């Protein structure tokens, strides 16, 4: 492995240069939109992967934090004129704090019932924002006032700055993941993901490790919520707490390779490009076709190789 490290560093460097140059080469705004989507879901997937991939706590309610982040920054901007840059950080902290009671409840259950309880908590949050019209516009939602070119308010006239924001977020989340992978916490996470009881027996504070990684994962996911709302200039409970975000966060990681650094990125590239190609091939979108394709890919991965694409390549490498 040691010999590979220099070439790995060169590869990362080249990839980074490519990603920075990409928006200047690509001029089609449709293509740039797809790239932003890929980076966004790669970021959300990487955040999910910390909890779902390494600790194997298979959440399907991560949109709870996405929505809280989105609502926090939007409420702060519209009610008090506070910049979404600050709102984003506050939203992250709100998401992080929300993960404490949610985790307290959901971690009581294991396996599939943990998954169900995360779905339920995300749904409760959506219903709360739907019901309480007085403080957050209810079901109608609201549009973000368009200020034209206002970098301090996270608003831009072209797509390129958004591309760099979400690229930055993705790089941060990948760096955190890479650091955790090599640290002691990473080993704790993998141990408890393999077998919780065994990890506990060998001295891992399972409750604390799960709580901390959930907080980190929630914080990062909430940042994505703010970014997305600023990007589409609109918020309502159905989009901010859309179940599809939770599904895609888990799916990209599982398809790409759960519990691996690059898994979510590879999974998002595969799933999002397949959607984009399908849509351009069919011309107009048919309701349900995107998730039909996703579910078929997911089923194939689970039945053929549950370790995902990265897992498959690792196996090939191990054989060679």
């Amino acid at each position, binding site marked *: 492995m040691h010999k590979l490290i220099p070439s790995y560093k060169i590869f990362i460097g080249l990839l980074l240069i490519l990603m920075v140059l990409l928006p200047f080469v690509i001029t089609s705004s449709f293509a740039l939109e797809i790239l932003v989507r890929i980076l966004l879901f790669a970021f959300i997937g990487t955040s999910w992967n910390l909890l779902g991939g390494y600790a*194997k706590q*298979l959440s*399907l309610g991560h949109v709870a934090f996405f929505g809280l982040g989105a609502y926090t920054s939007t409420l702060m901007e519209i009610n008090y004129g506070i910049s979404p840059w600050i709102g984003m950080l506050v939203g992250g902290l709100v998401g992080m704090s929300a993960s404490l009671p949610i985790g307290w*409840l*959901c971690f*009581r*259950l294991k*396996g*599939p*019932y943990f*998954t*169900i*309880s995360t*779905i*339920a*908590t995300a*749904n*409760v949050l959506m*219903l709360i924002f*739907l*019901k309480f019209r007085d403080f957050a516009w209810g079901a109608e939602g609201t549009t973000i006032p368009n200020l034209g070119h206002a970098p301090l308010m996270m608003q831009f006239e072209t797509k390129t700055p958004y591309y760099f924001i979400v690229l930055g977020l993705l790089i941060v989340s990948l760096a955190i993941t890479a650091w955790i992978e090599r640290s002691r916490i990473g080993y704790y996470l993998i141990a408890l993901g393999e077998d919780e009881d065994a990890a506990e027996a060998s001295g891992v504070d399972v409750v604390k490790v799960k709580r901390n990684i959930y907080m980190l994962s929630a914080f990062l996911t909430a940042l994505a919520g703010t970014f997305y709302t600023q990007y589409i200039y609109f918020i309502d409970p159905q989009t901010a707490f859309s179940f599809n975000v939770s*599904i895609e966060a*888990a799916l990209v990681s*599982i398809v790409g390779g*759960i519990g691996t650094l690059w898994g979510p990125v590879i999974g998002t590239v595969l799933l999002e490009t397949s959607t984009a190609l399908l849509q351009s091939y069919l011309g107009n979108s*048919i*309701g*349900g*076709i*995107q*998730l*039909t394709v*996703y*579910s*078929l890919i*997911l*089923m194939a991965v*689970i*039945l053929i190789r*549950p370790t995902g694409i990265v897992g498959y390549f690792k196996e090939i490498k191990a054989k060679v």
Partner: protein
Amino acid sequence: MLETVMQAVINGLLIGGIYALVSIGVTLIFGVVKIVNFAQGEFVMIGMYLSYYLSSQFNIDPVVSVLFSMPILFVVGVLIQHYLIRRVLGLNDLPQIFLTFALSLLIINLSLMFFTANYRTIHTWYSDEAFHFWGVYIPYAKLIAFVLAMILSGILWLFLKTTDLGKAMRAASQNRDVAQLMGINPNRVFAVALGIALALAGAAGSLLMSFYPAYPLVGQVFVLMAFVAVVLGTLGNVLGALVASLLMGIAESLGIQFIGADSGLIVVFILLLATLALKPSGLAGGWRK
């Protein structure tokens, strides 16, 4: 006031019978095969569309169409066990959770493509008929559905208690390894469990069709109810799931009556979260100890 409460309780109880059919299926699969079937609601939806087409094409009454939907879904259940679920048994949580989850996504989105998102309803001669009983309004369609749901649950209970296959199923759910040592073929037992669970979901769909609209996402409501009922009634416990489903139907109906029309689900989710916070082992779990 008392009459309003009574009316809400009866409404909830009647729909609770349908929830019971779905929950019993979920708890049966969980008990025997140790898998949570995220797609259970989608088989209710398939049952509804089956009855819808039998009714609109061949004029078969939705209640009679139970005779078609149950055997068809039994076979579907056996096939799903044989070709899909069998391949992930013994693996870790990830494939077990996401296989049936993917199946649920697939069925929902295929029906969105083929049936569109439109609501489909059937009008039968008894759809609008009702009678009054002690000042409470009881619609025939819901009463028929409730009574048949209870009869089906009773038959299942007798099957589990008295027949060899039923006993084998209970044995497999209590201790799979020992059951296997006693000569029970787990694959056969699992296939029958899946078949029965899906047949019950199909029956729930057919019985619903005379008073409830069919649409691709309809199963989500029922499966969420079932998950809550299964936790409340203690995982894998058939009688617990039945009682919990009836209680949930009543709780939902009281919520709709006294909090607001769209608050039924909030009540259900709060019930789930309260159960998790206070008694994650379920109600029956406490009685046993």
